[in-house]
Protein backbone atom coordinates (compact mmCIF):
# COMPACT_ATOMS: atom_id res chain seq x y z
CA UNK A 1 0.00 0.00 0.00
CA UNK A 2 1.36 3.34 -0.98
CA UNK A 3 1.29 6.17 1.48
CA UNK A 4 -0.36 9.11 -0.27
CA UNK A 5 -1.08 12.72 0.58
CA UNK A 6 -4.48 11.69 1.90
CA UNK A 7 -2.91 9.54 4.59
CA UNK A 8 -0.88 12.44 5.86
CA UNK A 9 -3.90 14.70 5.85
CA UNK A 10 -6.01 12.17 7.72
CA UNK A 11 -3.25 11.72 10.28
CA UNK A 12 -2.96 15.48 10.68
CA UNK A 13 -6.69 15.91 11.06
CA UNK A 14 -6.84 13.19 13.71
CA UNK A 15 -3.92 14.77 15.58
CA UNK A 16 -5.53 18.19 15.35
CA UNK A 17 -8.85 16.91 16.63
CA UNK A 18 -7.14 15.00 19.44
CA UNK A 19 -5.36 18.18 20.47
CA UNK A 20 -8.54 20.20 20.25
CA UNK A 21 -10.54 17.67 22.25
CA UNK A 22 -7.82 17.43 24.87
CA UNK A 23 -7.69 21.20 25.14
CA UNK A 24 -11.43 21.36 25.73
CA UNK A 25 -11.65 18.40 28.12
CA UNK A 26 -8.55 18.71 30.27
CA UNK A 27 -8.25 21.36 32.98
CA UNK A 28 -4.58 21.04 33.84
CA UNK A 29 -2.77 23.94 32.20
CA UNK A 30 0.33 21.89 31.40
CA UNK A 31 -1.72 19.18 29.71
CA UNK A 32 -3.57 21.91 27.81
CA UNK A 33 -0.25 23.27 26.55
CA UNK A 34 0.71 19.76 25.48
CA UNK A 35 -2.55 19.47 23.55
CA UNK A 36 -1.75 22.73 21.81
CA UNK A 37 1.61 21.27 20.81
CA UNK A 38 -0.30 18.40 19.20
CA UNK A 39 -2.29 20.91 17.17
CA UNK A 40 0.86 22.67 16.03
CA UNK A 41 2.30 19.28 15.15
CA UNK A 42 -0.73 18.54 12.99
CA UNK A 43 -0.23 21.80 11.13
CA UNK A 44 3.44 20.93 10.62
CA UNK A 45 2.53 17.56 9.12
CA UNK A 46 0.14 19.26 6.70
CA UNK A 47 2.82 21.75 5.72
CA UNK A 48 5.47 19.10 5.18
CA UNK A 49 3.10 16.84 3.24
CA UNK A 50 1.96 19.64 0.95
CA UNK A 51 5.52 20.83 0.56
CA UNK A 52 6.33 17.45 -0.97
CA UNK A 53 3.09 17.43 -2.96
CA UNK A 54 3.70 20.83 -4.52
CA UNK A 55 7.45 20.18 -4.88
CA UNK A 56 8.12 23.46 -3.14
CA UNK A 57 10.50 23.96 -0.24
CA UNK A 58 8.56 26.85 1.27
CA UNK A 59 6.53 24.50 3.43
CA UNK A 60 9.65 22.87 4.84
CA UNK A 61 11.08 26.20 5.89
CA UNK A 62 7.74 27.03 7.49
CA UNK A 63 7.91 23.81 9.51
CA UNK A 64 11.36 24.67 10.88
CA UNK A 65 10.22 28.15 11.84
CA UNK A 66 7.08 26.91 13.51
CA UNK A 67 9.19 24.43 15.51
CA UNK A 68 11.19 27.30 16.89
CA UNK A 69 8.08 29.33 17.63
CA UNK A 70 6.39 26.38 19.34
CA UNK A 71 9.46 25.91 21.51
CA UNK A 72 9.51 29.57 22.47
CA UNK A 73 5.81 29.47 23.25
CA UNK A 74 6.22 26.34 25.37
CA UNK A 75 9.16 27.91 27.20
CA UNK A 76 7.28 31.08 28.08
CA UNK A 77 4.13 29.13 28.89
CA UNK A 78 5.97 26.80 31.27
CA UNK A 79 7.83 29.68 32.90
CA UNK A 80 4.54 31.43 33.59
CA UNK A 81 2.99 28.20 34.89
CA UNK A 82 5.92 27.66 37.27
CA UNK A 83 5.40 31.19 38.54
CA UNK A 84 1.69 30.70 39.13
CA UNK A 85 2.29 27.31 40.75
CA UNK A 86 4.56 29.01 43.27
CA UNK A 87 1.76 31.40 44.23
CA UNK A 88 -1.27 29.14 43.95
CA UNK A 89 -0.02 25.57 44.38
CA UNK A 90 -2.21 24.62 41.43
CA UNK A 91 -2.20 24.78 37.66
CA UNK A 92 -5.83 23.81 37.26
CA UNK A 93 -7.41 26.49 35.12
CA UNK A 94 -10.79 26.09 36.84
CA UNK A 95 -9.22 27.26 40.09
CA UNK A 96 -7.75 30.43 38.59
CA UNK A 97 -10.72 32.59 39.40
CA UNK A 98 -9.34 35.82 40.83
CA UNK A 99 -10.27 37.64 37.66
CA UNK A 100 -13.69 36.09 37.11
CA UNK A 101 -16.84 38.05 37.68
Amino acid at each position, binding site marked *: *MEITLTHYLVLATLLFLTGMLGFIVRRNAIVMLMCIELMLCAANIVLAAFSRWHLDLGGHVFV*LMSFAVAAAEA*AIGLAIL*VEIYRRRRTVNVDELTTLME
Partner: protein
Amino acid sequence: MYTQLLPVLLVLSVAVVFAAVFLGLSYWLGPRRPDPLKETTYECGIPPRGTVQIRFFVRFFLVALMFLLFDLEAVLLYPWVLLYGDFLSAGQAAFALGEISVFLAVVVVGLVYVWKKGGLEWQ
Protein backbone atom coordinates in the same frame (compact mmCIF):
# COMPACT_ATOMS: atom_id res chain seq x y z
CA MET B 1 -0.48 -4.67 -2.46
CA TYR B 2 -0.32 -6.14 1.02
CA THR B 3 1.68 -9.28 0.12
CA GLN B 4 5.04 -7.67 0.76
CA LEU B 5 3.97 -6.92 4.32
CA LEU B 6 3.01 -10.57 4.97
CA PRO B 7 6.36 -11.59 6.53
CA VAL B 8 6.13 -8.70 8.93
CA LEU B 9 2.65 -9.78 9.96
CA LEU B 10 3.88 -13.32 10.41
CA VAL B 11 6.76 -12.25 12.65
CA LEU B 12 4.42 -10.07 14.70
CA SER B 13 1.86 -12.81 15.22
CA VAL B 14 4.51 -15.38 16.13
CA ALA B 15 5.94 -12.94 18.67
CA VAL B 16 2.55 -12.23 20.20
CA VAL B 17 1.53 -15.91 20.37
CA PHE B 18 4.91 -16.95 21.76
CA ALA B 19 4.84 -14.30 24.48
CA ALA B 20 1.23 -15.05 25.39
CA VAL B 21 1.82 -18.80 25.64
CA PHE B 22 4.84 -18.50 27.91
CA LEU B 23 3.35 -15.82 30.13
CA GLY B 24 0.23 -17.95 30.46
CA LEU B 25 2.27 -21.07 31.25
CA SER B 26 4.27 -19.37 33.97
CA TYR B 27 1.10 -17.92 35.44
CA TRP B 28 -0.59 -21.34 35.45
CA LEU B 29 2.31 -23.53 36.56
CA GLY B 30 4.41 -21.22 38.73
CA PRO B 31 4.03 -21.42 42.53
CA ARG B 32 2.94 -18.18 44.24
CA ARG B 33 3.65 -17.67 47.92
CA PRO B 34 3.60 -13.91 48.48
CA ASP B 35 4.97 -12.33 51.63
CA PRO B 36 5.28 -8.62 52.48
CA LEU B 37 8.98 -8.43 51.66
CA LYS B 38 8.44 -9.90 48.21
CA GLU B 39 5.69 -7.41 47.47
CA THR B 40 7.83 -4.34 48.09
CA THR B 41 9.35 -2.43 45.18
CA TYR B 42 12.81 -3.59 44.21
CA GLU B 43 15.18 -0.65 44.38
CA CYS B 44 18.77 -1.90 43.97
CA GLY B 45 18.56 -3.87 47.20
CA ILE B 46 18.06 -0.92 49.54
CA PRO B 47 14.71 -0.41 51.24
CA PRO B 48 12.53 1.85 49.07
CA ARG B 49 11.37 5.19 50.43
CA GLY B 50 9.09 7.99 49.30
CA THR B 51 6.56 7.77 46.52
CA VAL B 52 7.05 7.35 42.80
CA GLN B 53 5.46 10.68 41.95
CA ILE B 54 8.07 13.00 43.34
CA ARG B 55 8.09 16.62 42.29
CA PHE B 56 11.09 17.68 40.26
CA PHE B 57 13.20 20.55 41.45
CA VAL B 58 12.17 23.63 39.50
CA ARG B 59 15.72 24.20 38.25
CA PHE B 60 15.34 21.20 35.96
CA PHE B 61 12.57 23.06 34.15
CA LEU B 62 14.80 26.04 33.64
CA VAL B 63 17.70 24.00 32.30
CA ALA B 64 15.36 22.06 30.04
CA LEU B 65 13.84 25.27 28.69
CA MET B 66 17.25 26.78 28.02
CA PHE B 67 18.35 23.64 26.25
CA LEU B 68 15.19 23.55 24.15
CA LEU B 69 15.53 27.17 23.08
CA PHE B 70 19.21 27.14 22.17
CA ASP B 71 18.86 23.75 20.55
CA LEU B 72 16.09 24.92 18.27
CA GLU B 73 17.95 28.03 17.32
CA ALA B 74 20.54 25.73 15.81
CA VAL B 75 17.79 24.21 13.64
CA LEU B 76 17.18 27.60 12.08
CA LEU B 77 20.70 27.51 10.64
CA TYR B 78 19.77 24.66 8.26
CA PRO B 79 17.71 26.68 5.76
CA TRP B 80 20.45 29.24 5.69
CA VAL B 81 23.03 26.57 4.90
CA LEU B 82 20.83 25.25 2.09
CA LEU B 83 20.45 28.67 0.55
CA TYR B 84 24.02 29.85 0.98
CA GLY B 85 24.98 28.37 -2.42
CA ASP B 86 22.30 30.46 -4.16
CA PHE B 87 23.53 33.58 -2.44
CA LEU B 88 27.10 32.73 -3.42
CA SER B 89 26.18 32.36 -7.08
CA ALA B 90 24.19 35.59 -6.96
CA GLY B 91 27.25 37.40 -5.61
CA GLN B 92 25.48 38.14 -2.33
CA ALA B 93 27.59 35.97 -0.04
CA ALA B 94 28.55 38.93 2.15
CA PHE B 95 24.89 39.73 2.71
CA ALA B 96 24.05 36.16 3.67
CA LEU B 97 27.00 36.02 6.05
CA GLY B 98 26.03 39.37 7.51
CA GLU B 99 22.46 38.25 8.09
CA ILE B 100 23.41 35.04 9.83
CA SER B 101 25.91 36.98 11.96
CA VAL B 102 23.08 39.25 13.07
CA PHE B 103 21.02 36.17 13.95
CA LEU B 104 23.89 34.66 15.92
CA ALA B 105 24.56 37.99 17.63
CA VAL B 106 20.95 38.07 18.83
CA VAL B 107 21.32 34.52 20.14
CA VAL B 108 24.54 35.51 21.91
CA VAL B 109 22.79 38.47 23.52
CA GLY B 110 20.19 36.02 24.76
CA LEU B 111 22.89 33.75 26.16
CA VAL B 112 24.68 36.64 27.88
CA TYR B 113 21.37 37.72 29.34
CA VAL B 114 20.60 34.27 30.70
CA TRP B 115 24.09 33.96 32.09
CA LYS B 116 24.15 37.35 33.79
CA LYS B 117 20.69 36.83 35.23
CA GLY B 118 21.93 33.63 36.87
CA GLY B 119 19.87 31.30 34.70
CA LEU B 120 22.81 28.93 34.34
CA GLU B 121 23.65 28.76 38.04
CA TRP B 122 22.43 25.75 39.93
CA GLN B 123 22.14 27.55 43.25
